[in-house]
């Protein structure tokens, strides 16, 4: 491994502004040094939880802070921890999900590279609260810098009795290890991640039983997104009240958001939940050209039109608008972007990344792409627009995992908000954005890499 110094990978660009809480310490704290992290107040949260609060009070603290999962689901973290704590099992496991399922989302990678001890502290707090004796940090295998720094952080923390056996001289023990995971969209789904951890195909399994009851090797397992754990560490050291200081009432705190697409300065920002979308776009230097739509939530999200930019970036308002938080992706599209083609892109992406376990997903995404191809080629069948909606509804109804349930989102929302573009393509073969030239040459599905 190369000595990477203290800088982040060039893939990560952190933009100034916003409400920096987790990002504030990146670049200030030396990611390779435990002392530096401790000087900045690190491991105070773990110390407070282990020595003062105890597991129940720690969960209560997280509940009081109103922390919700930052991986897109928005499930209250405290409820998950309570369920895992209440589950019976000889050993329990906590898994930090840093698989970064959508490669465009930069938040987890920035945290793992810029402040690995923060993630580790959050993981240990979660392990302490749920009573877990094993903790696994699952990282994408191509994030070599992150893996290297996390491993070093674990070794340092163990030497300082902050992780491993008998943490801080108490009887709480938690062995942490880094697991290098696969590179695939579905690998970020929690049950797929657990399957891959067991050496099986990374495919989701049906729930219930939830992993908090029976997860890795049958043990109650808490799977948390990396960012959620970082927030949990922050709550443990600063308290619930301070955490609630910013953010909305239903979802306090901040969220790491990656802004990209047609903006002046794409990159990673941290904003309080409830910030209007227009402000988030402005943090990235504003849109280049006239903004037409904003795709929020990546391939599982949806498109909001330009006049909806005052929508608050929060779980419920976005959900009501047909989008979602996802892993914090905000993609800005300008008037030169064809919405039908964009919808096709996201669906094609979902089709290529489909694990193939659930038939409605494997075949449904493909049929949706084919239908959009017919519309783009101006040769639709009479009921194609109806078919898009019907098929999407069935996929959502029969979904095995959330990736499948939300895969039609970008298509459905663009269909609702930009029906003219669909109609112009279908009836006249005309692209209102002027982006699609001639007939499509791209094959329906490019062969998977290496096959």
């Amino acid at each position, binding site marked *: 491994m190369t000595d990477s110094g203290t800088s982040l990978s*060039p*893939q*990560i*660009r952190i933009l100034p502004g916003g409400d920096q809480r987790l990002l504030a310490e990146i670049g200030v704290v030396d990611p390779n040094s435990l002392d530096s992290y401790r000087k900045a107040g690190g491991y105070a949260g773990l110390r407070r939880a282990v020595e003062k609060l105890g597991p129940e009070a720690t969960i209560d603290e997280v509940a009081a802070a109103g922390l919700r999962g930052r991986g897109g689901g928005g499930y209250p973290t405290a409820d998950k921890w309570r369920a895992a704590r209440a589950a019976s099992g000889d050993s329990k496991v906590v898994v930090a999900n840093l698989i*970064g399922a*959508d*490669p*465009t989302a*930069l938040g987890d*990678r920035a945290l793992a590279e810029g402040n690995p001890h923060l993630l580790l502290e959050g993981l240990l707090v979660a392990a302490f609260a749920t009573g877990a004796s094993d903790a696994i940090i699952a990282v*994408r*295998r*191509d994030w070599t810098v992150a893996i290297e720094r996390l491993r070093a952080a674990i070794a340092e923390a163990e030497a300082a009795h902050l992780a491993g056996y008998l943490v801080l001289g108490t009887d709480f023990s938690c062995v942490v290890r880094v*697991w*290098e995971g*696969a*590179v*695939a*969209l*579905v*690998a970020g789904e929690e049950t797929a991640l657990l399957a*891959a*951890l*067991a*050496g*099986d*195909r*990374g*495919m989701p399994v049906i729930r219930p039983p939830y992993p908090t009851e029976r997860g890795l090797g049958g043990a109650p397992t808490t799977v948390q997104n990396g960012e959620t754990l970082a927030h949990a560490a922050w709550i443990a050291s600063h308290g619930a009240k301070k955490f609630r200081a910013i953010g909305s009432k239903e979802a306090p705190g901040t969220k790491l958001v*990656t802004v*990209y*697409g*047609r903006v002046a300065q*794409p990159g*990673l920002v941290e904003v309080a939940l409830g910030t209007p979308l227009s402000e988030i776009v402005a943090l990235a230097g504003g849109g280049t050209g006239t903004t037409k739509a904003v*795709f929020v939530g*990546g*391939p599982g999200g949806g498109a909001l039109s330009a006049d909806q930019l005052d929508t608050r970036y929060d779980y419920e308002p976005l959900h009501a608008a047909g989008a979602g938080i996802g892993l914090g*992706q905000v*993609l800005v*599209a300008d008037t030169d*972007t064809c919405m039908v083609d964009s919808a096709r*892109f*996201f669906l094609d*992406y979902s089709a*290529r990344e*489909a*694990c*193939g376990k659930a*038939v409605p997903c494997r*075949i449904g995404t*493909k049929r949706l792409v084919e239908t959009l191809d017919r519309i783009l080629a101006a040769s639709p069948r009479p009921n194609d627009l109806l078919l898009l909606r019907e098929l999407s509804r069935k996929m959502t109804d029969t979904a095995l995992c959330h990736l499948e349930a939300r895969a039609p989102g970008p298509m459905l929302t663009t269909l609702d908000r930009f029906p003219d573009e669909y109609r112009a393509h279908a009836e006249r073969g005309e692209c209102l954005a002027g982006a699609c030239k001639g007939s499509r040459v791209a094959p*329906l*599905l*490019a*062969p*998977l*890499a*290496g*096959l």
Partner: protein
Amino acid sequence: MTIPGLGILKGLRQTARNYWAPKVTNQYPESRPTMPDRWRGRLDLIYDPFGEHKCEVCFQCAQVCPVEAIDMSGFDSSGNRIRYGLPEIYDERKDPNAYRRAGLPAMPMRNAARWDEEIDTPWLRGVIDGFGGKPEALVAIFSAVEERYGYLPERALREASERMSIHWAQIFGAAGLGGFRLLPADGHLVTICTCAACRFAGGDALLTALRADLGIEPGETTADGTITLETSDEVAAGALSPALRIDTLVYGPLTVEQGRHVVGERRKAPVRARSGQPVA
């Protein structure tokens, strides 16, 4: 209102009725029971008198399976290797079948010369044992093999399957879904990122330009064998978009001109030796 024991009595009534009913033996095949329309009997592969599978990998069962749940690999009766694939990419597997029905030999794998590449078995065993042969280390083992060979040779996967006592299907599935290369790439591997960030930053233009320049489609190798072009969603270029990756290095953000230049320069550089030798 429910009376306790009524359900048991109801059940026992059926038992009693069957007990005293006359016993009948149906004279199959003279008289046949009516079965559901789609009843196909018990599904099994049949064997010849020497104990060999009679399945010749004709893919017919895979083609009629309504939920497309069947896939296979192996040699057909004339010794052609049938390409294997994940059940997920079912469109692809129809290709050999289409060939077969046209009376043509089944399509060979893209790089027929290297599909059975010899591997350094003691080294691989060492790697596997180094991880204690735990199934959770599969991805790490695959990574080590890919680092050395540039892809996962089938023999390495077979060896891993044997050594770790894990089903071949499980090993192969984990490799396929884990984003590993299953076929070797000749020359420099140019991967163009097709993630959302790269695409909306103009990654399409990069792909179009390179396709025209090199005269190949994604998945193909140039005639002189110096460049293999492919696309992937997983370059994870982030702020570097639009980006492309050559072998292991990510370049970005690139204009079309810069992309052409970078590929042209790398094309001249020697390809690192992959097969059989450890990479320094």
